[in-house]
């Protein structure tokens, strides 16, 4: 363990000393504040047939603990599943591979580092939840245990499992981040289903990685017995139902059983088991396994390197005369080309299928589900749009080129917009054919918004992660019809023109912010 500690520490510091982590923390604080809605809010985070608990310590502490567990289980995976990838990209992995550290210890250090990052975020929501209790509280006594225990018995074990799955995802699915996302969310979907499915039995938590069946059982029993209802389960998440009046009840929290606590330890043990099994299949930075394409080509490079004698050097005299062309079209073309070429080719088959389907399926389904999903499937394309320069250290060239701010950045934005609008074209055409200008403009507005968000987040943080996590949450919210996140205008709005103006305003702000920061960056490399 003495050898693992410095690795965990270095990895943790490396991840947390970044703008993106700071922004993540800021978003976390905002979200933690939103976990306990004000009485006048038109959403809830724990939906139980129009009932909600009074804001005593137990309700605030447990709801906050549950929400932290659920939200971090969903987007925490995206936040931390790049520890090994970072070591591959920076080639630190090659050094690691030559040290005596075992695969298991290395992966364990990554898992623990993932875990500490997630615990840091959970720690922030814990502190905010106490603050919110005093802000929203209605005179109920403050009981610290009601805040500590839900975090200790729900979040702490669940995040351990998430940290382990992030490692397993990297080992088994490598750089196929889209596949990792799909596999993970499929798994989370099943686990979420288990929470309420088990609520009819006496919950032990054995089959529930989040352990939340215990609380759903307690709340449903309380409501059913006190209000003569037949509630089967409760829902978690930001649920917008337009309701602001609820029947309230006083709920005092849970009695923790030894069996339940044992079940949490069991899940943590399972997490360790996942890391151990992953270590048996870990490539240990063998480039053929880590990146098969690269290895093959490196070998080819050695074979085809031409003898020096065959070339005659460069003579300026024989070069054709220079013709200057400061237009941005060639840049747009190459940027678009790189966007299209980025990622796996099979993804284009999925894209094509969804694109065609958007012409055929009912308009609402295409607008509510297919288009947001299709745009999300391009997440790595968007996130690389302005970060690839730094990642590939090409920014030295672009920042030193002629008018980089007026030429490079617009070209990048334009190429992204062309692709996003191209992907949205089936719905734009269908909207235009029915003379529905609101739909057409909303979709164009939304398609542009995604590109500009990617650009602004990328320029601001210098990395891809924050945008990817944000875009995932946005897509998740859109398909769950959360009105405030309806960037494609698929839900009815009271004032559609105002809604479109808001999106347009956001787009304008994003453009201004992006240009301002990039302007600074081009002169401060």
């Amino acid at each position, binding site marked *: 363990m003495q050898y693992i500690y410095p690795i965990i520490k270095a990895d943790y510091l490396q991840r947390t000393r970044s703008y993106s982590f700071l922004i993540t923390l800021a978003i976390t604080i905002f979200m933690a504040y939103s976990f306990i809605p004000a009485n006048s809010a038109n959403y809830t985070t724990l939906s139980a047939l129009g009932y909600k608990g009074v804001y005593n310590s137990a309700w605030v502490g447990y709801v906050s603990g549950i929400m932290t567990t659920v939200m971090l289980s969903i987007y925490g995976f995206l936040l931390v599943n790049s520890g090994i990838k970072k070591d591959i990209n920076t080639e630190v992995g090659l050094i690691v591979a030559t040290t005596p550290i075992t695969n298991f210890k290395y992966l364990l250090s990554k898992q623990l580092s993932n875990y500490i990052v997630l615990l840091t975020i959970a720690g922030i929501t814990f502190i905010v939840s106490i603050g919110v209790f005093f802000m929203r509280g209605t005179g109920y006594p403050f009981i610290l245990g009601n805040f500590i225990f839900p975090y200790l018995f729900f979040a702490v074990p669940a995040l351990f499992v998430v940290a382990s799955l992030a490692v397993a995802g990297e080992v088994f699915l490598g750089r196929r981040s889209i596949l990792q996302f799909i596999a993970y969310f499929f798994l989370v979907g099943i686990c979420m289903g288990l929470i309420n499915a088990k609520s009819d039995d006496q919950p032990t938590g054995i089959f529930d990685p989040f352990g939340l069946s215990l609380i759903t059982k307690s709340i449903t029993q309380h409501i059913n017995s006190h209000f003569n209802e037949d509630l089967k389960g409760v829902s978690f998440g930001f649920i917008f139902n337009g309701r602001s009046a609820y029947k309230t009840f006083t709920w005092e929290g849970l009695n923790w059983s030894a069996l339940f606590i044992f079940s949490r330890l069991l899940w943590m043990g399972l997490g360790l088991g996942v890391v151990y099994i992953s270590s048996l299949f870990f490539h240990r930075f063998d480039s053929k396994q880590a990146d098969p394409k690269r290895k093959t080509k490196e070998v080819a490079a050695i074979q085809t390197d031409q003898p020096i004698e*065959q070339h005659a050097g460069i003579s300026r005299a024989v070069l054709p005369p220079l013709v200057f062309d400061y237009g941005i079209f060639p840049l747009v073309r190459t940027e678009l080309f790189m966007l299209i070429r980025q990622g796996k080719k099979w993804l284009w088959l999925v894209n094509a299928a969804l694109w065609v389907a958007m012409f055929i399926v009912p308009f609402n389904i295409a607008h509510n589900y297919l288009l947001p999903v299709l745009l999300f499937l391009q997440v790595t394309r968007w996130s690389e749009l302005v970060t690839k320069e730094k990642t590939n250290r090409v920014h030295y060239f672009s920042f030193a080129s002629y008018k980089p701010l007026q030429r490079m950045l617009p070209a990048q934005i334009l190429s992204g917009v062309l692709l996003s609008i191209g992907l949205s074209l089936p719905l734009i055409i269908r909207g235009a054919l029915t003379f529905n200008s609101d739909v057409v403009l909303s979709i164009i507005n939304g398609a542009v918004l995604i590109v500009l968000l990617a650009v602004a987040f990328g320029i601001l943080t210098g990395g891809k992660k924050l945008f990817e996590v944000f875009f995932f949450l946005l897509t998740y919210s859109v398909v769950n019809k959360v009105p405030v996140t309806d960037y494609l205008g698929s839900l009815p709005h009271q004032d559609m023109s105002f809604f479109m103006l808001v999106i347009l305003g956001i787009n304008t702000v994003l453009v201004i912010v992006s240009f301002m920061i990039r302007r600074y960056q081009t002169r401060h490399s």
Partner: protein
Amino acid sequence: MALTITNVTKQYNAQKTALTNYSIDIDKGVLGLLGPNGAGKSTLMKIIATISKPSEGTLFLNGIDIVRNPDAIRKVLGYLPQDFGVYPNLNAYEFLEYIAAMKGVGGKGLRRRIDLLLEGVNLSADAKRPIGSYSGGMKQRIGIAQALLNDPQVLIFDEPTVGLDPEERMRFRQLIADLAQNCIIILSSHIVSDIETIADQVAIMQDGKLLIHAPQHDIIKQADGCIFELLLDNSKLGSFKQQYKVIDTARQADQIRVRYISSKGKEAPSSTQVTATLEDAYLFLTQDNG
């Protein structure tokens, strides 16, 4: 073509100053920058390349203030950074086309220009393969080709010979000699022999300051009469190093030939005075000031 740098200071924070009151006039020809790690060479080059802004001071290219108007130099600049990268999914041809677009180079002759540059750096045969598959030396040659795309009047090469094999290094030196007739070339290298072969003028830097800027032979003169050689027993080397600044050692039969710096008249007995090289002068100047 003249580049005038006056009192340039680059301060990153209260603790770290990369350049202090740096002034130098650079004319057509090759200026070699020498200095230990952290001397400020790369920072100076980044400032000239406009990707880093000086905290204080001015830079004028032919009378135009390039701190305020960076696009004036960008139009005529070729820059090869020390740790540049490439887009791995593009092939050499596509990458150069992309860089050409950044530099605003186009027209019908572009394809031919890229072909000739790729041929010149011996990459024609590999031009259609993704650059991600290239070896370090091949990437370096792509870097050299991109720097020349726009017939630059100011060329900045930061450690250009890293990764090149000896023959490529020789070819690179020839290229620089050809280009130097028409433009300003600023190049830094840790390989003093590269600078010795290529540079007309040499600037030695240390701790963000300019120690000396002069023609190469004038710099070498600084160490004249101070460089000696001596054959020593292996066991005496340790104590010898405590008395003299040793530049180089070479094993010779059962003894060691030691090249060292000493003031005239204070050299060790049985020593032979030898002709100073640029490397001797560089070490002589930087060690005195270290």
